[in-house]
């Protein structure tokens, strides 16, 4: 008989921080108290609060234990489960009030979220198809198979669901175009090639609730008239692949995939295709070539995949998070879906919150939530009492949202007006110490590496832009660089073949728009206002604070510091390599960084 359940978060972040050894310790301790028959241990998908991991939740109380180690895991068993005493030291502490929070449901990080796509993540065992069914899983498929394909497409269109992969294209329109397209067989493809640095929404869905995507793809197959689906997932996601594969096997066993599904006469199956680490394969035409076994390079649109996709046949391609919305739209209806979010961007969006913010992790909020709510209410604000500077959205294809727009509701259209994109949902928070020129250079460097090389504007244009950015950061910026950057950025944006190139200049354009003064400081004053670009820094010793302890002189790798014991030291600027060691080792605050 089971009296308690222990849910352990087995999302990527918690696994990295030691989930496996925590689980082993729990099981060992349960055995040593002979209560292994009474307490069940279940591994779930990502619970979202990644910086609090490894997380263990004890049911029925719902007690939320954070940062559990193998040693403290034993306490959970011997104290909570044997003696009924909550282990206070492992509870979450509310930063403002310093109160301990016993239940996960009361942590502000969770209370402000609306979990739709992530409704099963961290709640069910992703390896159990029965638990998925218990949470209304596969009821949407059963419902859909009794509807006409046109009606299904009607509901999806009416819901106003837009592609969660980044561009926000209306999903229903894609479905209809694929259904209407001539040619057979047709295909259904899921884009799980989530490549933006810092984004892990799709991975978490595939790891935590794989059946929701299988169910949605099957419904899509029935709606557009396809019998074959492909799940394209990147090789860097081994756990997602493993769990999805297991889920496929279970779905076949239960007859949700295969011949004559639920006695409807409709047949459908899904195959996994593993990417080989190219960012460009997240672009749909490149992805389709990659599935065909060819080199992953994009092609001109039109024709769109809906007309000529996989092997030149009509192909429906949607992103993981988009599919994960479908089952609930079918069971609960279009109006339910529209009940949260903004009129033109209904529903929720999952964000991967990262960077200079207290609570990092995975959050799902209604579209139209403001950046302030995301960063300060859910994210808990900026650590170290620093000021918020900007949020980077859309990864290397996006730009920044500045502090002036903290209260603007975030949806597909509002972020576009600011010159950035929603993207797949990476949200990187930057504090006052971030150099925006350096940030733009980082993302540009990423696209330079990942450009497939097929078209010239992207291959050469981004590289030339990068060289200019590099020069600026090294203090070799010239008058006219800003104008040249803007001109080149526009050419790359307007003439590149695919989305990768067309969006690659966004980080530069966006930071030029909002932080041109920082570019000017780099180019004309040879200064980095945020003290990030090391070539633009000058280290000096302030004579009145220096006590002559010689610590800096002894540590300086380029022997640039000289001076007598107990007398003020001097840095020889011609020898200084700007490594910052002196700044780190000085205990008297005598080294100045400008």
């Amino acid at each position, binding site marked *: *008989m089971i009296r308690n359940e222990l849910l352990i978060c087995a999302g990527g972040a918690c696994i990295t921080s030691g989930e496996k050894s925590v689980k082993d310790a729990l099981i060992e301790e349960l055995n040593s108290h002979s209560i292994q028959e009474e307490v069940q241990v279940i591994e779930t998908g990502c619970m979202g609060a990644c910086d609090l991991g490894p997380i263990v939740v004890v049911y029925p109380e719902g007690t939320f234990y954070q940062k559990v180690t193998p040693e403290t895991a034993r306490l959970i068993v011997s104290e*909570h489960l044997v003696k009924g005493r909550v282990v206070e030291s492992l509870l979450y502490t509310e930063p403002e009030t310093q109160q301990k929070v016993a239940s996960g449901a009361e942590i502000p990080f969770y209370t402000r979220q609306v979990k739709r796509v992530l409704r099963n993540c961290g709640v069910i065992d992703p390896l159990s198809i029965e638990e998925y*069914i218990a949470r209304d899983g596969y009821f949407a498929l059963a419902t859909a198979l009794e509807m006409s394909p046109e009606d299904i497409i009607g509901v999806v269109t009416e819901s106003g669901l837009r592609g969660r992969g980044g561009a926000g294209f209306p999903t229903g329109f894609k479905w209809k175009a694929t259904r209407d397209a001539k040619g057979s067989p047709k295909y259904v493809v899921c884009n799980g090639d989530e490549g933006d640095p810092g984004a892990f929404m799709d991975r978490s869905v595939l790891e935590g609730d794989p059946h929701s995507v299988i169910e949605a793809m099957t419904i899509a197959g029935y709606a557009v008239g396809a019998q074959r689906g492909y799940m394209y997932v990147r090789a860097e996601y081994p756990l997602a692949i493993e769990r999805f594969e297991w889920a496929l096997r279970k779905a076949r066993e239960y007859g949700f995939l295969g011949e004559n599904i639920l006695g409807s006469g409709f047949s459908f199956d899904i195959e996994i295709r593993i990417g080989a680490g190219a960012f460009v394969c997240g672009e749909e035409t490149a992805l389709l070539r990659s599935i065909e076994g060819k080199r992953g390079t994009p092609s001109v649109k039109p024709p769109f995949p809906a007309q000529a996709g996989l092997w030149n046949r009509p192909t429906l391609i949607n992103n993981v998070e988009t599919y994960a919305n479908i089952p609930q739209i079918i069971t609960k209806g279009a109006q339910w879906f529209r009940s949260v979010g903004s009129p033109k961007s209904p529903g929720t969006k999952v964000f991967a919150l990262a960077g200079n913010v207290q609570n990092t992790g995975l959050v799902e909020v209604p579209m139209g939530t403001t950046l302030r709510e995301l960063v300060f209410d859910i994210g808990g604000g900026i650590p170290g009492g620093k000021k918020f500077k900007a949020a980077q959205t859309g990864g290397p294809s996006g730009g920044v949202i500045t502090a002036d727009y903290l209260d603007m509701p975030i949806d597909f259209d509002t972020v576009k007006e600011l010159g950035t994109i929603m993207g797949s949902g990476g949200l990187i928070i930057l504090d006052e110490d971030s150099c925006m020129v350096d940030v733009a250079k980082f993302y540009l460097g990423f696209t330079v590496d990942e450009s497939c090389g097929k078209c010239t504007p992207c291959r050469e244009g981004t590289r030339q832009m990068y060289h200019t950015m590099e020069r600026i950061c090294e203090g070799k910026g010239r008058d006219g660089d800003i104008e040249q950057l803007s001109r080149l950025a526009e050419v790359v944006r307007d003439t590149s073949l695919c989305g990768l190139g067309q969006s690659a200049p966004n980080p530069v354009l966006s930071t030029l728009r909002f932080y041109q003064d920082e570019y000017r400081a780099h180019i004309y004053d040879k200064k980095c206002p945020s003290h990030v670009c090391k070539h633009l820094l000058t280290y000096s010793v302030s004579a009145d604070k220096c006590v002559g302890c010689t610590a800096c002189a002894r540590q300086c790798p380029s022997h640039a510091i000289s001076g007598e014991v107990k007398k003020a030291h001097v840095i020889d600027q011609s020898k200084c390599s700007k490594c910052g060691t002196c700044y780190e080792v000085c205990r008297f605050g005598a080294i100045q960084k400008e």
Partner: protein
Amino acid sequence: MKSLEELKRIKEETLKEMDLRQAKERGKIVVAMGTCGIAAGAKDTLLSIIDELDKQGIHDVKVVQSGCMGLCDREPTVEVSMKDQPAVVYGDVDDANARRIIREHVGAGKVVADLVIKRENI
């Protein structure tokens, strides 16, 4: 899997197994699991309570453990607090008494007077 009925059957069966994770709003039963309680058999009491709730088909009441309540000579002690009603503490709750409490108090809403140690707000 050939029908909606079968799907519903799996849902119902699995929901029972996932019962502990559901929100339980109607009430809470606290079993004192201090050293004294455990020595007096609180562990068996806890399992009897869970078993009887299951037999009676009651799924909206939470069963949790606590430390010693301080009534060591009347262990095992159990506190039953149903929504909008005063909490009741029972003493000497062995297997048979536990099952009575579930049937009479939790199931039928009648306090088991002869086992009561303390009633709130009286």
